[in-house]
């Protein structure tokens, strides 16, 4: 008899499963991917102290701990519905129905697309797709690539491709349009890049430390940054003043047509040229993967600082729908360490619901830990995450008092 079903075997789902099982609950975790670990599997970056964050090792550690505690993990299972029953939840999957008292959604995030002409050609992948191919499957995505979209995720993954011996020719912005918006605006992108300055300190030290603090200096620097050339991280040219107009190719990617843009993102006519490439990565950023929370009937909030629509939840990771919990990127886009800390909270919170958490301080400590991990995160996906988190918490409390 399963007490709790967890959808998603990433850092949040595995951590939650561990916390539940440590308190005597029968846990089942399902995941669509053939192996557990979620997006941890592909992660690899150098921390400011010089050590490597090796997501594959982290996933292995969590998995071993979960298995030791008897957590039942089924991969290759796709969940497509969750319906409330008298006793709990009836969850529909590609491998039959599960009837469970408690349901935790730890589905993570999906990548936003930046459609541009030619983006359906073979050889065009999402940046996350290229990460999985490179670090998880250890298959080369190509010989010489161009990354379209400059953000925290794409910069980190471009570095990972480079570590695998794959040549990233350059990173450029997507041409500005109603879909790409800020992703095509050099000023906005430059500001977001300053938040990852610590990942490649030498690059940004060259630009001067004053730059990091003054908005006026940032604008000035951007005006004088050469359109083609720009800045480099680990030797990879990041061209904030060039935009991709079109991906060229007959049967597969052969190149990218780029154009110089001004500091506001407007193209400069007559500066178009085609750069040869055999693969292209599109990086539009992440949004919470929330469909299951929607079909389960959970109320939502739209909070751009958390990456889009997120299911309402309190700091115990309970949604307003009885027996439905959320943890990890489904609640807002943050790093794997925050997701894992949230998973532990969700697991303890579920154990408490079952009356199996005699040590109440464990839950309050776990909630505090999420805050500490968030403050110490190497990669901040959005500058206003704390504000977004506070808003969700207030909205959730408001929802409860209205009900």
């Amino acid at each position, binding site marked *: 008899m399963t007490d709790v079903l967890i959808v998603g075997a990433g850092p949040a789902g595995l951590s939650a499963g561990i916390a539940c099982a440590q308190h005597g609950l029968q846990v089942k975790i399902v995941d*669509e991917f053939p192996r557990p670990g979620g997006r941890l599997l592909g992660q690899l970056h150098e921390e400011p102290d010089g050590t490597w964050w090796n997501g594959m090792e982290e996933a292995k550690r969590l998995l071993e701990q979960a298995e030791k505690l008897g957590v039942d993990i089924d991969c290759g299972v796709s969940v497509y519905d969750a319906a409330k029953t008298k006793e709990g939840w009836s969850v529909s999957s590609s491998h039959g129905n599960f009837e469970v008292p408690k349901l935790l959604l730890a589905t993570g995030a999906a990548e936003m697309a930046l459609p541009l002409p030619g983006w*359906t050609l073979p050889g065009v992948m999402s940046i*996350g*797709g290229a990460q999985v191919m490179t670090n998880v499957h250890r298959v080369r995505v190509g010989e010489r690539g161009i990354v379209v979209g400059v953000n925290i995720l794409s910069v980190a993954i471009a570095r990972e491709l480079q570590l*695998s011996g794959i040549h990233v020719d350059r990173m450029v912005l997507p041409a500005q349009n109603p879909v790409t918006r800020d992703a095509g605006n050099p000023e906005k992108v430059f500001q977001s890049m300053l938040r990852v300055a610590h990942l490649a300190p030498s690059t940004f030290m060259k630009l001067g430390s004053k730059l990091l603090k003054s908005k006026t200096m940032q604008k000035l620097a951007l005006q004088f940054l050469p359109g083609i050339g720009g800045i480099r991280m680990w030797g990879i040219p990041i061209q904030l003043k060039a935009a991709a107009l079109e991906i060229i190719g007959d*049967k597969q990617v052969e190149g990218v047509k780029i154009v110089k843009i001004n500091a506001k993102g407007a193209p400069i006519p007559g500066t178009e040229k085609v750069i040869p490439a055999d693969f292209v990565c599109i990086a539009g950023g992440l949004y919470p993967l929330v469909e299951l929370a929607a079909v389960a009937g959970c109320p939502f909030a739209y909070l751009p600082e958390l990456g889009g629509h997120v299911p309402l939840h309190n700091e115990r990771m309970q949604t307003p729908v009885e027996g439905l919990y959320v943890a990890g990127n489904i609640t807002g886009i943050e790093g794997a360490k925050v997701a894992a800390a949230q998973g532990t909270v969700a697991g303890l919170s579920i154990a408490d619901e079952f009356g199996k958490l005699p040590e109440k301080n464990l839950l309050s400590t776990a909630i505090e830990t999420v805050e500490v991990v968030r403050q110490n995160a190497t990669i901040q996906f959005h500058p206003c995450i704390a504000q977004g988190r506070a808003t969700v918490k207030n909205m959730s409390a408001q929802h409860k008092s209205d009900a």
Partner: protein
Amino acid sequence: MTGRIEHHPILGSLENRKQILFHFDGKTYTACESETIAAALLANGVRTLRVHEEKGTPRGIYCNIGHCFECRVTVNGVKGIRACLTLVEEGMNVESGVQLPVPFKEGGHQK
């Protein structure tokens, strides 16, 4: 050029995995045991997994984690299987998607 990343400065060298044979559109390819169809095909230099059902334009792997359904193929006669989530097996018969006659007929997929 595609192929495998045998050595990695942080992740180390690839361990020796059992080699298996599978078929894609009538040709035989070698794969490593417990890898996905998508990874096995890309390692063999195959980028096009299907064509657009109406326009016939080529399609390959896009998201690689099951969200986009761009890599759907026919596996042992079963249509609509995501190559990026399905592990390749010895003797597996994989077929790419093909262009369909237009205009599409209502219910035509059920024939």
